């Protein structure tokens, strides 16, 4: 019995040893390791080893400058300006549903925060928007402008700008109760809500200059706390009680009587104060790309015209490139061009900057994939209306080809279906 047991033990020990050794080789041997080959099959019909020409250049199909006549209500500023040939109107609409109709209103006034200014006196008129027009929203302000009633409902002259005693005053300055409105206006809006189409602010006709009001979209951070810096309409009740209303809609329009910017100008103007932007449409006809191809980078090179940079010597400003969402042509200066809300790239520009390099790879990817139409790009200086940065870049009509804009694209084609011969 003992001999039999030992024999079986040896057999199973032998089996276990063989199985264990084989499993050990499988588990720890080089065959289990992941490996990569840096060699291709030279006879492959799939062309996996074909040279990949990923770098390409694109020319500009159309480009022009345009002065924006208006902007959606998503902006954080409202521009008030007046020059002999152009002026602007800032529109605000207040919802008065929360005003207590049973209480007596004693006064109505508007408080705003201002940005910039030179310390000069500024005279502002407030007009009621024609109560008979249809409702408007800040995202769809008609470019001809909601008409204002002729007689102002409020007017004010004040000093705006830098206060030597308060260095920060040049940046943001609170102006309380700058405009006092007749109580009867609010009472009528309460009684006849359909007549509430808001108010329009503009500089008085003899007041040349510009100021910037922070809009209802503006926010500021003070000691890590977000503080409200929007305009406020303050309603005082008889006795105690105050109601502050923020605009539910606000935006501004520029009415420009100057001659249109020519489409074939050799330069493109970027202006921060009175928004002038550049429209650029790449000509993709020479780009051998199709849906499914991958854009790794698409870089737009724009050469700055020497001597056109205007801004503080030690301060950079930001230029952004946006995908357009609406049509335009080089021949006709548009009033406005719809664009994406967010820039695909933002760069800082300094006095010694010679070339702007902006990446719009994600936008080109959308065009190649058919997700968006090629309506071109908008270049603009960020913070329009807030400061006075300005520069010009050469356009595709520049005399010297070396100065014209150019685009470099790095793109690659994906693998073709396995059944296709893509060898080159």
């Amino acid at each position: 019995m003992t001999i039999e047991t030992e024999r079986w033990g040896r057999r199973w020990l032998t089996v276990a040893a063989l199985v264990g050794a084989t499993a050990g080789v499988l588990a720890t041997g080089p065959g289990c390791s992941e490996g990569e080959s840096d060699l291709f099959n030279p006879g492959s019909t799939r062309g996996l080893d074909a040279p990949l020409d990923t770098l390409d250049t694109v020319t500009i199909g159309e480009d022009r400058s345009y002065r924006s006549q208006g902007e959606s209500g998503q902006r954080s500023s409202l521009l008030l300006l007046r020059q002999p040939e152009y002026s602007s109107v800032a529109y605000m609409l207040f919802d008065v549903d929360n005003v207590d109709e049973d209480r007596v209103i004693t006064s109505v006034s508007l408080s705003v925060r201002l940005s910039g200014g030179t310390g000069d006196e500024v005279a502002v008129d407030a007009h009621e928007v024609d109560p008979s027009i249809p409702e408007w929203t800040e995202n769809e302000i008609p470019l001809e402008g909601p008409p204002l009633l002729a007689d102002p409902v409020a007017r004010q002259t004040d000093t705006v700008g830098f206060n030597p005693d308060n260095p920060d005053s040049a940046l943001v300055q609170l102006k309380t109760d700058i405009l006092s409105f007749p109580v009867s206006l609010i009472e009528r809006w309460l009684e006849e809500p359909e007549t509430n189409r808001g108010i329009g602010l503009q500089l008085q006709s003899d007041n040349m200059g510009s100021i910037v009001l922070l809009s209802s979209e503006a926010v500021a951070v003070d000691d890590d706390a977000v503080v409200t810096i929007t305009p406020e309409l303050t309603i005082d009740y008889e006795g105690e009680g105050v109601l502050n209303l923020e605009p539910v809609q606000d935006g501004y329009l520029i009415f420009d009587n100057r001659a249109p910017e020519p489409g074939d100008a050799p330069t493109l103007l970027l202006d921060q104060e009175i928004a002038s932007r550049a429209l650029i449409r790449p000509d993709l006809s020479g780009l051998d790309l199709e849906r499914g191809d991958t854009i790794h980078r698409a870089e737009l090179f724009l050469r700055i015209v020497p001597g056109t940079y205007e801004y503080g010597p030690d301060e950079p400003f930001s230029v952004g490139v946006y995908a357009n969402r609406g049509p335009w042509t080089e021949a006709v200066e548009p009033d406005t061009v719809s664009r994406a809300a967010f820039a695909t790239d933002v760069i800082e520009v300094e006095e010694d900057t010679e070339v702007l390099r902006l990446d719009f790879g994600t936008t080109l990817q959308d065009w190649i994939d058919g997700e968006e139409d090629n309506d071109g790009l908008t270049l603009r200086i960020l913070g329009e209306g807030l400061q006075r940065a300005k520069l010009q870049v050469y356009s595709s009509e520049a005399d010297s080809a070396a100065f014209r804009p150019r685009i470099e694209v790095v793109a690659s084609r994906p693998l073709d279906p396995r059944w296709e011969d893509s060898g080159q």
Partner: protein
Amino acid sequence: MNTLRIPALLCSALALAVFTPSAEAGSLFASEGLGLPRDGYDIAARGTGGTSIGSVDPYQMSVNNPAAIGWVIRPQVQAGLVTENNWITTRDSDGSTRVGGTRLPGIRLAIPWPGSLRWGAGFRDLTDGRYTIESVFNEGADDEFTRTIHGAGSIGQLYAEFAVPIADVVSVGARFGWVGGTLREQSEDDFFDGDVTDTETVLRTRVENAKSAAFGIQARPVERVSVGAYFGQVSNARLKSLLENDSGVTSEQRRKYDYPSTWGIGGAFRMTKRWEVLADYSTTMWSDAEVLDDNTSTFNDFQDGVHIGIGVRRLSDPAATIRSRLSRRTVWRLGYRYDELGLPSPTGDPIKEWALTGGVGIPVQFDRGFVDGLVEFGRRGDKDEVGLRETFFRMGVGVTFQQLPPAF
């Protein structure tokens, strides 16, 4: 007597599959066609050069001749694990690159029930799509980048079959199955310039909606001689190519594919009571396969796949008893095989593969199956003509076992 039941056998095989390490590198030929073709031989049959079509053996679990399970005595399961090292050389390369990978190429179950009827079911690889290539493009230029392509997946066959032995002399069988699978190729472009966006695309090639049928026969006209033959056909398959890039864009192309048929013959001759020679010949008519709606496709240019295998094995001593030494019951195998791979070839000549094979079968208990070991050494491709040569060393371990009596 208590016995281990079928669920226990399945669980064991499943555990083997689950714990198999997954490596993703294989033959560069896997990037061609629908992947590197894989035969259906089990680990034991590979040891004799890939021979089983005419082998009458109750433990034989190769997936080619469906008549073979007609000889199964008890419910049994087979699974194998194969690991391969490749040394890859091209006509332009100075040295070679070594890659490797491990895979469970199939699993199979056979059940004799009721009476003389035998049923079987399982899964097997028809092709293997694993490969990895990494290479640098545009060296020194602004757009220099590394492209890495990882191939994975396989085309497989899920099948059910039956066979009937007749008078202990003949077995006839049929197998019906579904052919399908996905070959996944992930391409990563990694640019040297950090400002350039790296991207990744995934190409999936799917074979769908193909049904297969195979019919086979084995016969043992005299005690020492056995022969067999089979024929298999696959219905038209739907090919799909699905591309997805980094921005989420997907595109799809479809083709209809006339899948090839296959047939094979084989035989075995027992020279002495312990020595047996075996031979197989089979072909898959890839040259007849075509993409029905695309006459420019490279899939129309496949070469016929051919397999020729010869082998010899030293069987268990038929006089051995349960008390005999293990060596008397161990099976030893030796073989040679020659294959022409059904892949597109730049020269129009088939891509060839040969291998020397060897193996051992260690009995499980006395008569309840085998633990099989395999070694193969061979080459595929040709450095001068095809431009690509792979020298491979393959090891495998498989188990074929039946119900195990615990009282053993």
